[in-house]
């Protein structure tokens, strides 16, 4: 993730020099040069000028982060350029305005001719007519041509509802077809790779998928085979389309040709509630949109944030959501009775018991293991509690394989949050051996484990039995929750609000997509209660207030406001 690749191009500002053009009769000054897919400055195109003027130009093959192909012809726009006399001087109208020559067919001057807006640069004085009758006519013709062999199987197509072909057909299409011949049939339900299904009949041959995997990922696996109307997207013979970024082609595909095997036939997209959130699979913190219906998560899709993940995310992170809805989630507050059995209890009783124990505990006999999967606010509260009871604190590092694109080697989404709040020192996990040794020798008699399994972290299960008090706040049952004296059911990050600080120090806010099961409460809520029970200030009751309290106390976050974070975050220096 060090050097910018075409995958994540540098964020380049458009040139300061502007060109005046007319879009639908309105004058607008647009930058002369704008960044292309690699972040290099290139002459501004007609499509970009129209976008700046707030006029949408329909397109399939053009994508701001892919090389321009110009093959779908949907963005054809009629235009005019200032007329030039034989003396190379502009020809003027009677009122002194420059005379505009409309684009026409060279061999048939009466017929307007368009240019593809995605690949035609603008010139000074140019007039664009993206809403003219001729432009509309060209779009209708292109759309009719694209629909000639389209199977129209929208009822069984996962893309229905977010399909550009459907949308533009509503705007520019015709109600009936004039095509009386038999449609060309192509392969359906093609198994392209472990996560992708291809339906060649639906394809409009925009080649977005080919360009993405060839030019951005560098895994050249897709191409077009056969000729003419038999053009077909296919994986090269003997290869499978299986890199870690294949599912981005499903988002890129403007039609339903490429669909996700994971999301296949799960839910129609118009039922999905979309919540802006963050992927918590690694420290990159890709921005995602969570699609859920009736408290069930159906898919994650990348959300555009050029400072973090561009338009993309990895397949592994995208598919890492099923555990949130697992049936064995911890959903009950449990307290161990003197008989040794865990019994269902209430939040008041459980937190009371923890607070009473912590008040009596001597400094140095308490350890807090705070997962770097918790939100920054929760880590901050744990730090406050830790300081109050004189606890040894640490987090469990998770290292894995990273790549040059989006996957980070640090598999904790919020280790920088733990660093910023002081839960861990410079070397995360350096206190762990001391804590485990302390548990074994009996020097540590109270352990609060939040989101981490101590047994997995290296603490022998039998030494956990020697603890006077083991509090486990977790989401899924594990060896620690099975031995805990108090079990506090928590929330996945998709079930609460909060912030993560990613590997680059970007503070990113996420929202609540679904409800947590049973008694489970967001950790920050009950940690606030616990902090108060231990004599802490009454403090805020909501996440905004908690964030502002944290921003006052934590130097790294000084001056930040919850509302200023927006949906794309703010970068801080860790």
């Amino acid at each position: 993730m060090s050097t910018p690749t075409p995958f994540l191009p540098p964020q380049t500002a458009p040139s300061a020099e502007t060109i005046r053009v007319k879009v639908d009769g309105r004058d607008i000054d647009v930058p002369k040069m704008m960044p292309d897919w690699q972040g290099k400055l290139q002459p501004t195109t007609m499509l970009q000028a129209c976008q700046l003027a707030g006029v949408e130009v329909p397109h399939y093959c053009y994508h701001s982060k892919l090389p321009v192909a110009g093959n779908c012809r949907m963005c054809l726009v009629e235009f005019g350029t200032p007329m030039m006399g034989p003396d190379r001087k502009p020809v003027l109208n009677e009122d002194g305005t420059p005379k505009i020559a409309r684009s026409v067919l060279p061999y048939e001057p009466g017929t307007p001719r368009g240019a593809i807006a995605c690949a035609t640069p603008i010139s000074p004085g140019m007039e664009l007519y993206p809403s003219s009758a001729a432009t509309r006519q060209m779009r209708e013709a292109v759309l009719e041509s694209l629909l000639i062999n389209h199977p129209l199987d929208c009822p069984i197509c996962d893309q229905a509802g977010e399909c550009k072909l459907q949308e533009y057909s509503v705007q520019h299409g015709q109600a009936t077809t004039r095509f009386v011949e038999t449609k060309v049939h192509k392969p359906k339900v093609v198994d392209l790779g472990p996560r992708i299904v291809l339906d060649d009949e639906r394809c409009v041959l925009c080649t977005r998928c080919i360009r993405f995997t060839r030019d951005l990922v560098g895994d050249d696996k897709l191409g077009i085979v056969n000729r003419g109307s038999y053009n077909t997207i296919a994986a090269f013979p003997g290869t499978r389309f299986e890199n870690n970024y294949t599912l981005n082609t499903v988002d890129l595909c403007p039609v339903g040709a490429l669909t996700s095997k994971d999301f296949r036939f799960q839910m129609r997209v118009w039922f999905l509630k979309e919540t802006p959130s963050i992927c918590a699979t690694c420290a990159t913190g890709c921005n995602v949109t969570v699609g859920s219906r009736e408290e069930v998560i159906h898919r994650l899709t990348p959300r555009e944030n050029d400072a973090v993940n561009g338009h993309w995310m990895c397949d592994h992170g995208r598919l890492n959501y099923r555990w949130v809805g697992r049936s064995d989630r911890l959903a009950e507050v449990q307290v161990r009775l003197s008989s040794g059995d865990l019994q269902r209890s209430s939040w008041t009783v459980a937190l009371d018991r923890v607070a009473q124990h912590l008040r009596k505990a001597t400094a140095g006999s308490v350890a807090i293991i705070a997962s770097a999967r918790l939100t920054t606010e929760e880590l901050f509260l744990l730090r406050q509690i830790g300081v109050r009871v004189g606890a040894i604190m640490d987090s469990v590092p998770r290292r894995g394989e990273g790549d040059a694109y989006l996957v980070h080697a640090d598999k904790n989404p919020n280790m920088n949050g733990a660093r910023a709040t002081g839960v861990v020192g410079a070397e995360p996990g350096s206190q762990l051996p001391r804590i485990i040794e302390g548990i074994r020798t009996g020097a540590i008699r109270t352990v609060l484990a939040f989101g981490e399994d101590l047994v997995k972290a290296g603490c022998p299960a039998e030494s956990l039995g020697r603890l006077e008090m083991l509090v486990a706040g977790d989401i899924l049952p594990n060896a620690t929750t099975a031995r805990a004296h108090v079990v506090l059911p928590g929330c996945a990050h998709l079930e609460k609000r909060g912030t993560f600080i990613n590997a680059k120090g970007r503070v990113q806010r996420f929202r609540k997509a679904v409800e947590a099961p049973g008694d489970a409460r967001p950790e920050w809520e009950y940690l606030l209660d616990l902090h108060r029970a231990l004599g802490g200030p009454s403090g805020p009751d909501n996440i905004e207030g908690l964030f502002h309290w944290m921003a006052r106390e934590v130097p790294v976050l000084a001056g930040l406001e919850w509302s200023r974070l927006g949906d794309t975050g703010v970068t801080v220096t860790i």
Partner: protein
Amino acid sequence: MIVSRKPLSLAERFYLPAVANGFKVTWRHFRRTVFEGKTAAGETAGGFHPEVPWKVEPGYRGAPYLVRDQEGHTKCVSCQLCEFICPPKAIRITPPGPDGQAADRKNAEKMPRDFEINMLRCIFCGLCQEVCPEEAIFLQKDYSLSGGSREEMIYNKERLLALGGTHSGTQKWKHKLEEAKAQEAFPVKTP
């Protein structure tokens, strides 16, 4: 124009003519029912509901049921448009998902895992039938639905298909498949 009101007579002020006329009507019905054995229901519908079922005219909007095609296959492809359009949210479809059972006919790819209509919620508006792109759901002639519990009134896929019967349609998925098969052989046959 002002209509002058005729002053009422003493008898009229005591409602005597009105009462007499009322008795006349009552007596007429009494006589026809008891002595001549004639009833309004008997004359129009041939008897009383429920002994004699009401004759349902074509176009009547009764309970919506799922239909099968002429080959006995489920026509519904689980597109969930009816679930979306249903004003009282009476329809609930469980899509097959990635691992679900494939459609019971070739080329359609998809059919619902479950399809529930809560007949207590249904308002028989017919929007599901209108919106269906597959001609898979029709408002049929059942107008008298009863059940012993609320659960019993939620009809599932098997029940809806059993009640719905058959509707012969164009079988577009089958034709598409035949068309595609014909293209595998050269020269291509055109219709």
